[in-house]
């Protein structure tokens, strides 16, 4: 559960994309506060700005205006290189399409994240426990094309948390999975949150998946319209 400290603070966040000669607003004054150790679900229709919010919190793109603080870092003031460094240790991503490097084994996909973060190739003992929790310890020497969707997503989760990030951002993590695997992945995310206090933000279209979070934020037209 949350420990009362805001790990993400978003105020008056705006993001405008330039498409040709047209400005397209993706976020229009988003206000959000997420406590450390919170599991927050974000729901909303396509084009509501969920992914853009994730990309900004994850440091993949800068905000156009507004204030975004992630684990004490002011993203609006950060350079591209600073945001790159932020992605190494502070945030971990889990994507709908798993996004594993297809030429590397599961083990090497995880090792890449540690290498980029400047850490030893060998994960911590704590991480070995997580691998057991994820149920993928025996599948680490396989390449993604030899793994099921559920296994690939578990590897992606392992990669996302191998550097013990402050925040785990999961963008529709069950979008490409069947019901059984979806349930397994959601329970893993909940386990990580409950056992290890991992802050989790999860985008989903599925109300059942959203129910795994402590709170649910509803977005529409680039704004947060409800938090329940």
């Amino acid at each position, binding site marked *: 559960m949350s420990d009362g400290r805001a790990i993400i603070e978003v105020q008056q966040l705006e993001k405008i994309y330039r498409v040709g000669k047209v400005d397209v607003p993706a976020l229009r004054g988003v206000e959000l506060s997420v406590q450390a150790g919170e599991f927050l679900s974000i729901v909303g229709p396509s084009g509501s700005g969920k992914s853009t919010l994730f*990309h900004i919190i*994850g440091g*993949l*793109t800068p905000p156009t205006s507004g204030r975004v603080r992630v684990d004490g870092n002011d993203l609006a003031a950060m350079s591209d*290189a600073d945001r*790159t*460094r*932020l*992605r*190494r*240790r502070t945030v971990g*991503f889990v*994507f709908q399409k798993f*996004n*594993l*490097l*297809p*030429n*590397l084994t599961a083990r*090497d996909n995880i*090792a*890449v*994240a540690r*290498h*980029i*973060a400047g850490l030893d*190739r060998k994960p911590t003992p704590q991480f070995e426990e997580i691998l057991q929790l994820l149920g993928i310890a025996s599948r680490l020497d396989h390449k993604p094309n030899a793994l099921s969707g559920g296994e690939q997503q578990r590897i992606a989760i392992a*990669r996302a948390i191998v550097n013990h990030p402050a925040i785990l951002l999961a963008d529709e993590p069950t979008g490409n999975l069947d019901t059984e695997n979806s349930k397994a992945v959601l329970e893993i995310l909940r386990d990580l949150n409950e056992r290890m206090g991992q802050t989790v933000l999860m985008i989903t279209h599925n109300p059942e998946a959203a129910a795994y979070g402590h709170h649910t934020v509803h977005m529409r037209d680039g704004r947060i319209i409800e938090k329940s």
Partner: protein
Amino acid sequence: MIAKIVLENLKHKPMRSLLSFLLIGVPVTLILTLVGLSHGMLADSERRTRGTGADILVRGSNARTALSTGPATLSEKFLDFLAHQPHVQSVMGVITHSIELPLVVNGVDLDQFNRMSGGLQYLSGGGFQGPYDVILDRYYADQKKKHVGDPIELMNRPWHVCGIVDGGKLAHVLVPLKTLQMLDSATGKLSVIYLKLDNPANTEMVKAALDQQLPDYPIWSIADLTSQLQEGLNNQGLNDFIAVVMGIGVVIGFAVVCLSMYMAVLQRTREIGILKSLGGSKLFIAQIIWLEALLLGVGGTVFGILMSYAARWAIVTLKPASFQVEIVYYWWPIAAAITLIGASLGALYPGLSAARHDPIEALAYE
């Protein structure tokens, strides 16, 4: 870790990797074969000249180098003059006529030749019996598929093969001196006079004495032949030609790697996005591209070296008399450096392009 990513990338598209190796290897082969050819021809010329047993050679006043071809301008009268110089044991006059490049025919007096060189080692047949008899060495006989008794067309007229020898002494083709002098309208003239001394240790002393007596005639010791031959090759612009081929090698290496890596970057857009989402810096992405380009260069160099062996085999099999190719090991690192320079230059644009990818667009790439 970067090395592992790069190796797995190369293994993932083996046909692309192999084609890149092959294309990068072509200029390496070209360079190594050209250098090997020049070294092989040089060594062969030197070996054949040394095979005469001579210690000194005298050329006509118009000769540029020790073994360059040209009109025969030395009078046969020099033979008698030179034979009576101190320490000279035997003399041999030779006339040279170019046939199909780079081959020449030597007109020789077999008695002089045998006295100086110790004689030819006949594999079949024997010496000249008539004015239009010709002795071939086994390389030329193999190349032309000729045997003793066969007719052969040389210098626009028919000849008769009277003997096939082991080779290694003077030209691949020997004909009677008088016949070639007549055909070249050079009766009484010679291209080269070879001198054999009583002791090779007297070479410099005899050469110095001859230089004084014949100041207008180039005189070389056989010991100086290697540098003379190298100079002769250089004078013919060979180094310039090799430099041009090296330049072409850099350009081809650049173009192949640039194209190959640019295609790879396009194909791996999503993977670049993944690495960026994990916090991979621009430098990290560029390093992957650069290292892969270098590995393509190294693979291309290895392929090029292997193909240079194949090229040598093909050349010496098809034209054993005309061309000799050596494997010149010290040119391997030079060829590798040329390729790696080309590959590094070729990786610049794809590397920068990959490093600049927007991570969100890259992750959305299908």
